[in-house]
């Protein structure tokens, strides 16, 4: 818990939204495993056999515990191969983009923290959601970090912030669109 030694070599999706989505999908799977599969014919048509509505005073919550990488811990690889951390200390890395010259862009993102509190429940929801993040509020995120390994020894010499002050950036393609839109138009 709380360890920041994120390994780039495995795409570890530790963003809050993704964690929650995983929990949600996991809960769905569990719910699906409880009973034997129903006859598919009862699930289609004008009057599908829908499960009964369930209402809770306190909804069931299954938040997966965050397990961080220990210092120097790495996945096992086959004989003859080796694996190394390209970068550590990233804040919620969500996706990677390798540029043609070998530079790696790491998109780090988390909730921007600007959501309004609309109901008293939202305080409790935020608290429960904080269980799903790795180490809580650990520092600046919502940025793109540039890693450059020019000499190819597997250890990047350059680690710098490429873009920051981004809000919950989760994918590269939307940034590409930004670049496109910022290209000066010929007059």
């Amino acid at each position, binding site marked *: 818990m709380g360890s920041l030694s994120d390994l780039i070599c495995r795409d570890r999706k530790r963003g809050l939204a993704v964690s929650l989505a995983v929990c949600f999908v996991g809960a769905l799977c569990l719910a699906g495993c409880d009973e034997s599969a129903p006859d598919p014919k009862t699930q289609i048509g004008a009057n599908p056999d829908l499960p009964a509505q369930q*209402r809770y005073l306190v909804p069931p919550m299954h938040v997966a515990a965050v397990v961080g990488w220990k210092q120097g811990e790495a996945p096992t690889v086959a004989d003859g191969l080796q694996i190394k951390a390209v970068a550590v200390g990233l804040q919620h890395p969500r996706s990677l983009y390798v540029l043609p010259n070998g530079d790696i862009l790491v998109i780090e993102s988390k909730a921007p923290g600007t959501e309004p509190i609309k*109901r008293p429940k939202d305080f*409790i929801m935020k608290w429960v959601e904080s269980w799903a993040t790795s180490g809580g509020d650990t520092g600046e995120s919502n940025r793109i970090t540039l890693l450059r390994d020019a000499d190819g020894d597997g250890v990047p010499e350059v680690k710098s912030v490429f873009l920051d002050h981004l809000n919950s950036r989760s994918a590269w393609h939307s940034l590409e669109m930004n670049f496109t839109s910022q290209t000066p138009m010929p007059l």
Partner: protein
Amino acid sequence: MQDVIPAATTETSTETNPASTARVATHPIHPMLVSFPIACFVGTLLTDLAYWKTAEMMWADFSAWLLFFGLVMGGLAAIAGLVDFLSNRSIRALPPAWFHMIGNVVVLVLALFNSFVHSRDAWTSVVPSGLILSALTVIVLLFTGWMGGSMVFRHHVGVMN
């Protein structure tokens, strides 16, 4: 006519009124605080009715906030009231005080359950169970408020001698 003046009963006692223990400069704290939960819980019923009729989410959010602040202020009022109740034997001797105390514990429990019901999303956060709980809360409040009135206006609890 009467040889012996009967011992002062609680109903007609004019000797010493049952005193409030939780007080500021002789003013009891409990009556200062109870207005908040009463207004909040009555307001919850009104905003629940408005949501029921309009399905406008704003009213359901109002209800959730009113319940929340009603519970917070009601909890403080309960502490002041319980201090008065537990620390004065002559208050505990009054039947209306027991009805008032137990009834208001019921009010807070109902409101707490109602808060959980209101934490659901959309329609089922109010209709029907939230609305029913809000109405029950107000009905019990009418009774406990009446009992509180009996304590003060008939038995002079917390009234200066």
